[in-house]
């Protein structure tokens, strides 16, 4: 059982006592309890993190280079500025792709302008020009370049747009995309997603040559939007859509290519997984090209079934019938998975703190295994995320927006969940406390978790986390007795 509304309230009050008064007042707005019937979760969101509290959030650069653009595999993404940002985000998000790395794909490489003091003093535009020239010499098969701005770029007044335009012209209309995702912009990764979406709109869509990369359209063309193919998620999703007779013409952006981005406006329907990071471009395509979009959720059989039917409802009876065939085809796998793991996981309590869509989207998958999510929160969610969350959470769920290290530790201490799902920075804190943990950004180097194939892995992983014998060893036997 989760705590009651009153117990949550008391817990939040207790935790807030540690803060200076001004900070406590601000943090109070981000902590709350979901109550049935309310239109949102009763917390404020998408507000600046407070200094010194140990926020878990990242920055706009992380949202653009790390999330949206980085996985586009046949383009070269320059981390423009000092060396660190590109180094720390180098290949760490597990955006799987297929290609000859360093030759025709570049996903797990770190291209940086490695700014030195002179670049800060005199500006980096000349260096950027030279970098683009050198890329063309050494990596001639690249299909485009993006310039991912790090903090200094916006502060020293570089004109990366002018450089991009100039070089695009020089290289015969090559796609060169300047992205103003300096880390100090906005309050989290979230603005970086938005800026990156806008850059696709302005520097890809608006410059597409309609005679390039042509294929014959079909009535069943869809694009997967907002799946970064972490551990192969987009693949274990795509296979279901194709099995129901749809044709996936683009993946955004996991294992994606520039050609796929360019051709996406031809889709009959955009299917959107991570609403938070790609609703912007979906709305744009709806407005400009009339492409409708639908959100879906491929975590756990209940939500997968619902989503397959929802997606099929946008198409004819053949597709609708196919959706049922797909659901039936995987029924055995799902029944067996649940039969195996549910008895081992039934009633286990979970606390989540993740980004994007996951603080709500994975809840159904846990529930399919008989588990209960008793606390959840978003690293960089907006109010529309918390509204959507109301469809997933139960009355009394503890909600924490942009949780601080201190709060999260105290909440877990008090609530005593059987599993915490969050990120690498949190993982070892909770494991030290003896609480089973799974990284729910990187799937803890496992995955995929999307789709039916992914659900079997998800169930196995949650079981191995919670039921590992190691948790019975944390207390020395001579201390246990005392």
């Amino acid at each position, binding site marked *: 059982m989760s705590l009651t509304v009153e117990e949550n309230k008391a817990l939040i009050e207790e935790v807030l006592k*540690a*803060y*200076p008064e001004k900070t406590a007042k601000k943090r109070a707005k981000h902590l709350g309890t979901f109550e049935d019937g309310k239109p949102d979760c009763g917390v404020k969101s998408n507000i*600046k*993190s*407070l*200094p*010194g*509290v*140990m*926020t878990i*959030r990242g*920055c*706009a650069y992380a949202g653009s280079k790390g999330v949206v653009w980085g996985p586009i595999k046949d383009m070269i993404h320059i981390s423009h*500025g*000092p*060396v*660190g*940002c590109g*180094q*720390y*985000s*180098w290949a*760490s998000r597990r955006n799987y792709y297929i290609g*000859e790395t360093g*030759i025709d794909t570049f996903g797990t490489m*770190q*291209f*940086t*302008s490695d700014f030195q003091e002179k670049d800060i003093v005199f500006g980096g535009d000349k*260096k*950027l020009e*030279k970098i683009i020239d*050198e890329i063309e010499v*050494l990596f001639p*098969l690249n299909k485009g370049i993006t310039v991912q701005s790090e*903090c*200094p770029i916006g*502060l020293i007044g570089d004109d990366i747009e002018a450089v991009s335009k100039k070089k695009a012209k020089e290289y015969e209309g090559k796609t060169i995309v300047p992205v103003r995702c300096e880390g*100090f*912009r*906005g*309050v989290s990764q979230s603005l970086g997603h938005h800026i990156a979406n806008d850059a696709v709109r302005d520097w890809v869509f608006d410059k597409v040559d309609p005679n390039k990369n042509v294929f014959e359209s079909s009535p069943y063309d869809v694009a997967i939007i907002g799946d970064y193919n972490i551990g192969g998620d987009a693949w274990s999703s*795509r296979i279901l859509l194709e099995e129901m007779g749809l044709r*996936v*013409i683009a*993946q955004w952006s996991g*294992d994606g*290519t520039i*050609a796929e981005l360019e051709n996406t406006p031809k889709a009959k329907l955009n299917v959107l997984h991570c609403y938070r990071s790609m609703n912007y471009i979906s709305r744009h395509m709806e407005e400009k090209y009339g492409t409708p979009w639908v959100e879906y959720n491929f975590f756990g059989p209940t939500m997968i079934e619902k989503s397959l039917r929802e997606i099929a409802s946008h198409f004819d009876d053949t597709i609708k019938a196919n959706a049922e065939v797909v659901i039936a085809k995987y029924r055995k*796998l799902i029944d067996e998975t649940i039969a195996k793991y549910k008895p081992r996981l039934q009633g286990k309590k979970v606390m989540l703190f993740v980004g994007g869509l996951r603080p709500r989207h994975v809840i159904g998958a846990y529930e399919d295994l008989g588990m209960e999510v008793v606390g959840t929160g978003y690293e960089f969610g907006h109010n529309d995320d918390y509204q959507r969350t109301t469809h997933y959470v139960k009355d009394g769920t503890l909600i924490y927006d942009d949780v601080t290290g201190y709060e999260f530790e105290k909440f877990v201490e008090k609530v005593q969940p059987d599993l915490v799902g969050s990120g690498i*920075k949190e993982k*070892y*804190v909770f494991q*030290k*406390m*003896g609480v089973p943990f799974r990284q729910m950004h990187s799937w803890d180097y496992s995955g*995929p978790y999307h789709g039916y*194939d992914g659900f079997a*892995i998800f169930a196995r992983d949650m079981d191995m986390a919670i039921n590992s014998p190691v948790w019975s060893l944390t207390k020395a036997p001579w201390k246990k007795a005392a």
Partner: protein
Amino acid sequence: MPQNVEKVLDHENLFREPEYKAMFDNKRSQFEFRVPAEELAKQIEYAKTWEYREKNFAREALTVNPAKACQPLGAVFAAVGFEKTLPFVHGSQGCVAYYRSHFSRHFKEPTSCVSSSMTEDAAVFGGLNNMIDGLANTYNLYKPEMIAVSTTCMAEVIGDDLDAFIKTSKQKGSIPAEFDVPFAHTPAFVGSHITGYDNALQGIIKYFWDGKAGQGTALTRIPNESINFIGGFDGFVCGNLPEIRRMLDLMGVEHTILCDPSDVWNTPTDGEFRMYDGGTTKAQVEAAINAKATISFQGYSTEKTMKLIKEHGHDTTSFHHPMGVTGTDAFLMKVSELTGKPIPKELELERGRLVDAIADSQAHLHGKKFALYGDPDLMLGMTAFLLELGAEPVHVLSTNGDKEWAEKVQVLLDASPFGKNCKAYPKADLWHMRSLLFTEKVDFLIGNTYGKYLERDCGTPLIRLGFPIFDRHHHHRFPIWGYQGALRVLTMLLDEYFEALDANTIGIGTTDYSYDIIR
């Protein structure tokens, strides 16, 4: 349907199933519009050539796959090494998320660190308010005994003045006036993570020795018999510093390790999360001024720090990551010379056992060609060790090593017959290394986790030594310093050699005559 509950297929097998393979082919042929196979094959081969190598080395602006990180990462490392100290990085918050993730992926441990979370308004007006509020929040919430401040490039570009900001914060009552807040400016666009380590450590020592940034009195040095030891930025710190302590204890040398994160990055799983554990205490830092001498194990990682310490009258010695027999000999003899304490029998015995191990195995490493890359100090130490083993360090590369460093490596190479035809490459990256490995082949590569891409592309087996190591567990828990550490490194080299030899002779009925049971 490939997935199976009884034997769950993970990513590495799932996507090899025919359904997925067909899906990939379909995606590729219909929608990716990739370069034609012929053109692709041509470029793959071209990128292996001398001609490509020349173009690659002609690069002036672009960096590809560097083996270095930025200053504040090193500053956080330094701060973590002091008792109950919370690193506080002034600037954009995303940076701190990156440092914490980076360290946690390497050490498999929590890394506590806060940011002043500067955003656009701070870019315009400066980050003073972020400092004032940030220090107050950190102080109240995490109850540190010291907050060590460093900077991201954002704060440096707009020119925030840490000294003034911290003083103002104290005046505004954000933290008590007597609370210790050492600081260092650590611009990411100068040097690398080792520069940041150096600046931050120098900042902390200077703070305590030179009068707490004008808010106390400078300490007067009364020399005693103890010595200080500084390790430098080191991914194996959890194993190395305890090994140093053990050796110095065996010698009976009174010593202080300045900056010791080996406990906080090595806490037990026993039901309690320790945000702080171990580390050099403030009292130790203050007392360290009285030491007769200070030894740095990594000179490039401690240039400014050692300069400061020398200015305070210490006898200073900077090594370059000494490894192996002669490296460890030199270190111990220096300690003995400084303290007058003899090197004890136990260490002599360890030395003898290491030499014994080398003698047992040298035939397998003699003349083997190695490429290695990493921080400048590690490269000097490892090069010397390889030469000592009779191996050839053919390519020695460092992204954050400069020309002067390369000259030092060359001196080492020139002094040994095994250094003939070997070369140092300063300010080069792993894409340069790729060309080197294709054009001048070696038997083994030594480097951090990112070297696995070179292993994949060039077929050169990788021995993981350096920072970060994300894809193998627990290496950092064991020392690579001292005779014991050298024994471990020797074993790593040999393991990789034997693995490669076995793999090369495992063909049933074709090559397995050499698949020997005794090697």
